[in-house]
């Protein structure tokens, strides 16, 4: 029976199920338990800076590991543990911190299997929070999933709602390849139906979340809601938008994108990140390559501008893609 949970709660539930069903699953990260203080009287654990892992250390005391503020060490250790028999879920508090721990992903997790001629497997999951909107400014608001999606050997997924978060996280943890699991800030607090029990969603499959024949709006993570709002607005003018939720950024579900484009002939991709070298460009490039014959109009990318994320509310709001920008893009493309 579905219940209403926040995405954070759905993630917590997925972690508990994963740990219960497999003794090799461990969690590690900064304050994932909430510090050594957990044994002091009159205190309580925190379960991560956003509370996502709360309660887990009590259920699995040996498998929820607080770490020093040492992201390179955390991820590097997690890679080594994954290659030797554990199934670690490492928390990278914000994806912005990739700056201090890219190597274990870029040059180790992603490449061990290939470099070793197929003999290694690295069943590592990295959970990380991304996106703007919390007035957290330039170093805590980036949407750097393009950096991991671009690295051969990694997978990158990003749910757009609580139920998907649960199913995708369980799939990520059980996947034998390293998976980066992105928790968009705009999605984390969102609430919705979440099925009980143990289920997974296939990594690499997008989902049509609204059907329509006039234009395809591609979103993922927080921009699915933006695309849906835009679709509502467009419907009032009689334009029926199909909304595709990518769910997985790598691998990319090319068939789903091309299938929808074939139907609509027009496509807009909505991405919270900055415009260069991103998912939006990949989707557009796919359209003009394998989807060329379907195209009736330019492919538009609604993204953030090519700037860092500003602090002031008025600037940050302007920085983010919103439904109005998507609607304008659709109208402009004629």
């Amino acid at each position: 029976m579905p219940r209403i949970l926040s995405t954070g709660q759905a993630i917590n539930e997925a972690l508990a199920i994963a740990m219960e069903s497999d003794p090799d699953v461990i969690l590690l990260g900064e304050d994932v338990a909430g510090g050594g203080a957990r044994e002091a009287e009159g205190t309580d654990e925190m379960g991560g800076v956003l509370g996502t892992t709360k309660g887990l250390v009590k259920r699995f005391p040996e498998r929820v590991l607080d770490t020093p503020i040492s992201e390179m060490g955390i991820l590097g250790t997690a890679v080594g543990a994954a290659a030797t028999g554990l199934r670690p879920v490492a928390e990278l508090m914000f994806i912005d911190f990739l700056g201090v721990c890219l190597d274990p992903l870029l040059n180790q997790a992603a490449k061990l299997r290939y470099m070793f001629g197929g003999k290694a497997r690295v069943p590592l999951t990295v959970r990380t929070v991304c996106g703007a909107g919390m007035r957290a400014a330039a170093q805590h608001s980036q949407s750097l999933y393009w950096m991991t999606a671009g690295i051969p050997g990694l997978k990158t997924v990003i749910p757009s709602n609580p139920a998907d978060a649960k199913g995708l996280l369980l799939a990520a943890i059980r996947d034998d390849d390293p998976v980066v699991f992105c928790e968009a800030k705009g999605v984390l607090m969102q609430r919705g139906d979440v099925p009980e029990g143990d289920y997974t969603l296939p990594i690499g499959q997008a989902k049509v979340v609204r059907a329509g024949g006039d234009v395809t709006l591609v979103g993922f993570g927080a921009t699915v809601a933006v695309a849906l709002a835009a679709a509502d607005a467009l419907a009032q003018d009689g334009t029926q938008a199909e909304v595709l939720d990518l769910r997985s950024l790598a691998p990319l579900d090319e068939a789903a994108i091309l299938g929808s484009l074939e139907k609509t002939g027009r496509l807009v991709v909505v991405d919270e990140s900055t415009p260069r070298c991103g998912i939006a460009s990949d989707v557009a490039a796919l359209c003009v390559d394998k989807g060329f014959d379907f195209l009736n109009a330019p492919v538009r990318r609604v993204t953030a501008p090519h700037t860092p994320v500003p602090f002031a509310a008025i600037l940050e709001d302007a920085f983010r893609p919103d439904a109005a920008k998507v609607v304008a893009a659709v109208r402009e493309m004629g």
Partner: protein
Amino acid sequence: MQLTRERLLDAYRKMRTIRSFEEKLQELVLAGKMAGFLHLYAGEEAVAVGVCAHLGARDWVASTHRGHGHCIAKGVGVAGMMAELFGRRTGVCKGKGGSMHIADMDAGMLGANGIVGAGIPLATGAALTAKLKKTGGVGVAFFGDGASNQGQFHESLNMAQNWKLPALYVVENNGWGEFTPTEFVVPVSDIAERARSYAMHAAIADGMDFFDVFEKAGEAIERARRGDGPTLLECKTYRFSGHYVGDTLAYRPKEEAEAWKQRRDPLERFERRAVEAGLVDADDLRAIDGEVAAQLDAAVRAAEAAPLPDVADVLTDVYVSG
């Protein structure tokens, strides 16, 4: 450096300004008037002020997510800071930086930093500039106990010692990194011990005591200016508030904070010692308290009345050219 009455009053003014500035911020956030992630420095004032009392225009400071204190101590104006935190066009960073990136190059303040440990190499670079350009300046990095577990700490200190840079590394050991007690993640009892890995000079100061910090920092900075190389200065201090404004503090025993606040508040200790020794009058301090309060009220009013940034500003200041 001699601690003249004037200097002492200035130090007190800065410590009081930090304390009152942040009390204001807390009020504003809880009242829903201010947004963003705010990390309060209250309790640690003696560290920033004790160190920065030795610094001038040619010196640079690099800070952390907990940066208000370092800004004020280094001479950044509170009006610009307050406007920044309100996200106004008149903010010291035009509203683009916010608390975690508050900075003022004109004041030799290389920025708060949202990346734990990232200020350490920045200060090292400032020290390299000072050395190569022979400015006589020093580069000072403030950072937390938690940051001493970052690779950037290790790499920077090693480089600074290799090059005998005029640098000072001030580790503010406040007993906590977010919700985790320091001893849980730092297996040595004195972080100053870590200087040995680089054959670097080290010292430990009571970070709740302005006079002790002032003295130890003074020695280190003199060393640096003399060309005798960098120092790791550990200041034992305490974070009075939660990790950020809004933190429930569920993880920390209440009594721990109470004990520090009651017995070791750096402003009270300063006052006790300075007044008892006849260096300043309590009345002078009360006058300063009043002036600071008025200044901050004015800063809030001015910030509230200041214009918001222009939406088009989102696109500017990315590049100098092109």
